[in-house]
């Protein structure tokens, strides 16, 4: 009666999706925070960290847009 298959599918997909986005955002945030402190000692290293952090936030932005795409039925 209960559709275990689709339940497990939803659970696994949600777990992976949530973990991935939280991981990316957390790494980005850690790098950003480090970058602001590192800038004083080693400006170049700070810059690299900042660039990586921004890229990661960009990936998050793409994931958010994908979420919007999934929500709006007109897109698919």
């Amino acid at each position: 009666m209960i559709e275990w298959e689709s339940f497990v599918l939803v659970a696994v997909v949600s777990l992976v999706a949530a973990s991935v986005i939280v991981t990316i955002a957390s790494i980005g945030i850690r790098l950003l925070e480090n970058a602001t402190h590192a800038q004083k000692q080693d400006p170049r290293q700070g810059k690299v960290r900042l660039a990586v952090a921004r890229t990661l936030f960009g990936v998050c932005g793409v994931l958010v847009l994908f979420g919007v795409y999934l929500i709006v039925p007109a897109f698919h």
Partner: protein
Amino acid sequence: MVALVVVLALFFDFTNGFHDTANAMATPIATGALKPRVAVSIAALLNLVGAFLSTEVARTISGGLIREGGGGIQITPTMIFAGLIGAIMWNLATWLLGLPSSSSHALFGGLIGAVIVGAGVGAIDPGVLLSKIVFPAVLAPFMAAGIAFVATKIAYRVTSGHHAHAARQRFRVGQVFTSSLVSLAHGTNDAQKTMGVITLTLIAGGFQAAGTGPEFWVIAVCAFAIALGTYVGGWRIIRTVGTGITDVSPAQGFAAEASTTATILASTHLGFALSTTQVASGSIIGAGLGRNRRSVRWRVAGRIGVAWLVTLPCAAIMAAVAELLARLGPWGIAADALAGATVIVLMFRRARRNPVNHTNVTGEVPVVKHAPSVVMPKVPPSIASAKPPKVPAADSRRAHREQA
């Protein structure tokens, strides 16, 4: 009769809106990521937009639960009327207690109760009731809690280090996006339910051809009703979800909302419908567990759980009584409407005794002397009496002081 049902349906839509603001906005308000007023405005706007975006008629309303058409039972406007009364009563009662119960369950419960009285138990498909509503309702919070638990662990592990506290405050920015997505998803789902009810009524009343979608004016008024409800904001429920279950830090809030968003999007697209309310509350419990097991106030969580269990039967019972009255004829319907209006006014007056609004929504949950007992003696007294346990993590304490 049809006009009366339309008005009631819109009122239900309104209560749906303010009941569910908490799902998306409770944690960003609690962590200070968004100012309360700003948060409800964003939620209202996204609900409005969301309601227009979706063109599919929400078939969830009937969805096979009530056997209809072709040899089955014809649902009448009177039954929808009684069902809506039950659903609205329950939504307002749980709002008064600050409990985040599912508006969809209230609506289904109301319709089920009215149909059982109006057409007999045979009109309900128990298989569909179990597989589409009861099981998902039991599983959703555990699943969401598990996912949010993992997400919170990740967020804390990755950001641990020298500047952990400052770094974690940055999660607030992320919260704005995740909570906005939840709002948008809510708009595309929940306004649809009322559109479905109104359209069903119009068809049943012979004002619209069977098999057609909702008229534009129906979409428009439903969209505005849910947006208005969202804007008015169910501050009581926001307080319970945001600060009652556990003290949410920005990292937890982000993890919880990312889990809620992921779970809801996955469930909508992979065909295992879950209640937004239950997923959102479950995520917050999971986020609390992920940081510190003792930070979860189990009394509050338990009370919410009880509310979930009784939502469907309670709405059904109230709708059944309303349907019994309505069957007496026009006077019965008038008595229903009058009784309904009286209870609504009483509940709003009761709510004014200890108002919760954007000014005190993030505060400590105070002790309420007059535990409301208007409609439902079954549910234990309001959340207010729960004692917040000591939270060892200084992290959230500091966040709290900053807001104050």
